[in-house]
């Protein structure tokens, strides 16, 4: 375990989660959520869970962010909180 690397990614993960929940622009929130998923994928690769990291890279960072963007496009972009 490279704990410095681990800690850095964990802190960035916290920042990404907070930013994605605080943003009032839902499109930006979806994109930041994609960043959050990508950081998660890095963390799993670092934990030797390569299969999980691979799945998350395909699903979390790619597909689920796209699903959210599609929904934001079809509904509204503004959020009250």
């Amino acid at each position, binding site marked *: *375990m490279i*704990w410095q690397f*681990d*800690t850095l990614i*964990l*802190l960035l*993960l*916290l920042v990404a*989660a*907070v930013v*994605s*929940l605080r943003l009032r622009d*839902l499109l930006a*929130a*979806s994109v930041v*959520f994609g960043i*959050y*998923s990508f950081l*998660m994928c890095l*963390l*799993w690769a670092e*934990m*030797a*869970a*390569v*299969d*999980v990291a691979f*799945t*998350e890279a395909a*699903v*979390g960072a790619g*597909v*689920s962010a796209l*699903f*959210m963007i*599609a*929904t*934001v496009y*079809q*509904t*509204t972009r503004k*959020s*009250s*909180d």
Partner: protein
Amino acid sequence: MHFLNEHIIPFFNYWIYVIIMMLGLHAMIVKRNLIKKLIGMSIFSTAIILFYVSIGVNNGGDIQGGKPGETHGTIPVIEHELALEASHDPTKIDFRRYANPLPHVLMLTAIVVGVATLGVGLAVTQRIYRDYDSIEEDEILAKIAAAPSRQTDD
């Protein structure tokens, strides 16, 4: 300081997982926007998946000749040279050199099911927007209160 050394620093990872999970749960309960609630749900579920995967991490203990925490269990794929021998003699494999494959399997399927669940949630959101023209919880509740008959039509 003693408390910090004893209870927080060794469990630093777990503290962050719990904090991320709390963020997600808080968003699910408090946020009024439905898409924000779904982002909260995804953050909540990935925090739990992260916790599970971290349980499978294996530092190898003393086996590789280093102190715990200095070495790293490798990915759960058996090396090519070892594989042929291991197909006849399973004891050739030292299972502590590898990360635990079981949490990986369970969480791998959980991720794919999670995105399917997220899709269903987003579909419900779009359906609500089609009927009520809003994805804010309080506005929807106000509209339902103003016109009770809307619940039954369509």
